């Protein structure tokens, strides 16, 4: 009888004690990643499944953790690379690399993953499209971007506007407008609710930037120069107020005349 009671007691301790063990997503997710080659050898024929696991981990981490620090974004990039290494024919790692990573400041990593994808999935128009977008929006290299967009436009199922976009890029267009078009394209293909929420947040921020840019143009037309700071737009009654940044930062005018936020949209 005593043994039974002690047994039940021990069981209860383990059940209730479980609540007191601290479990944090940040530390859970950021576990050390194996080297891609070691992971491939260790998982053997189960490598694709292992790749799926790391992609799930990366996706959960991306959508659950706010304000990632550089160490965490590097982890994210490495997890996505690992997933694409373990199953190079799987499209989703390239999608995450093209759509999520550059915005986290991991442009080089995204480029490396996508360039590898060109080799394995040469028929997917999205991969050169993402590369072109990175060149255009983050690196301001319009010629390189046009080259990638043209490449994407020649592949099956690519949207009809791509060749037009490629030619229009030769003449410098609005980067923000382009980023909005890009995001709206992506939003059509996302099912995951949390991910959708993230992308919508970014879309709101970009729309606010576009709105401010358009007003800046009006200001320049009227006064022949750019304002010193964004608040001047409100003072001159061009807009009622400066729209809020959904990421919690504040929009400001950079020295080069671009609009950016203190939150870096992260």
């Amino acid at each position, binding site marked *: 009888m005593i043994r039974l009671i002690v047994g039940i007691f021990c069981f209860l301790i383990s059940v209730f004690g479980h609540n007191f063990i601290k479990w944090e997503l940040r530390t859970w997710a950021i576990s050390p990643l194996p080297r891609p*080659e070691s992971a*491939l*050898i260790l998982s*053997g*024929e*189960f*490598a*694709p*499944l292992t790749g*799926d696991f790391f*992609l*799930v981990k990366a*996706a*959960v981490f991306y959508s659950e953790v706010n304000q990632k620090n550089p160490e965490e974004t590097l982890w994210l990039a490495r997890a996505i690379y690992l997933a694409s290494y373990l*199953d190079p*024919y*799987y*499209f*989703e790692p390239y*999608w*995450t690399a093209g759509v999520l990573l550059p915005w986290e400041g991991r442009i080089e990593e995204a480029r490396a993953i996508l360039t590898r994808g060109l080799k394995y999935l040469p028929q997917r128009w999205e991969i050169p499209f993402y590369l072109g977008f990175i060149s255009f929006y983050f690196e301001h290299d319009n010629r390189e971007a046009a080259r990638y967009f043209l490449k994407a436009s020649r592949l099956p199922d690519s949207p009809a506007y791509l060749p037009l976009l490629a030619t229009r890029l030769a003449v410098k267009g609005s980067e923000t407008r382009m980023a909005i078009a890009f995001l709206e394209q992506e939003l*059509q*293909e996302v*099912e*995951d609710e949390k*991910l959708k929420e993230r992308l919508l947040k970014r879309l709101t921020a970009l729309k606010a930037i576009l709105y401010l840019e358009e007003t800046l143009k009006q200001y320049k037309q009227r006064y022949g120069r750019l304002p010193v700071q964004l608040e001047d737009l409100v003072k001159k009654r061009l807009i009622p107020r400066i729209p809020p940044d959904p990421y919690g930062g504040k929009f400001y005018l950079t020295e080069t005349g671009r609009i950016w936020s203190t939150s870096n949209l992260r």
Partner: protein
Amino acid sequence: MRQLTAIAQVTFKEGIRERVFLGVIVFSVLLFLGSGFVADLSIGNILKVTQDIGLSGLSFLGLFMAIFLSTSLIAKDLDKKTVYLVVSKPIARWQYVWGKFLGLCALTTFALAIGLIAFLISLFYFWKTAPLIQTPHIAWTKHLLAFIFLNFKMFLLIAIAIFFSSFCSSSLIAFFFSFMFYLTGANLQNVKMILSSRLGEKVSPYLKAIFNFAYYFLPNLSLLDLKQAAVHNLPLNESNLILVLIYALSYTMALLFGASFIFSKKELN
């Protein structure tokens, strides 16, 4: 011929009566039926993850059958001395080895077929119901082809298990050797790829020579692995596939002849 089929039948029945066999089948059928819910954790094309879980699960099920069950069933024969009853009958030793092999093959194929049916039902269900914007194309025939090749891989593994069981003193050692053979065999192609990449430049030439020897000597199981081709609908070279089948069958036969030879010289006491 009659003796051969008799031993095969007995082995098949004996395997089905194992409680482990039933447990593994129930577990894998549950896994396959639930694979879509697990895959739902992922992003984008969740059907790909369902396929991965299903095909990897089938591989794992087959692996268990081929290595664990084969070594333990033969060891049971030797330990419990039931092998005397067989050998004392007018049955040649080679007939015993081949009979065992055929019985184990039938057993594994039977288990894999049950798993395949559960997997295909669940895949079809999730294919029809998954809330995807673009319903992905699923290469059903390539799935069946992958299943057939999986079976041949298991036949080869069973032959490996029988070969090691024929001279190892305990089933644990036979199991260990067979598993090591499987691990290296499944990774030969990967290691070859890594060695020929930039990372391989640092590897010493002696190690590379050893590897090249192993590459031709050990069974290249990754050739029989068509999982990725089925999931991503990759193009397959037909004449190459036939060569792979011939390779697998001849390797299996070689091991079985080796095992019969060793077994006929073995002193049973």
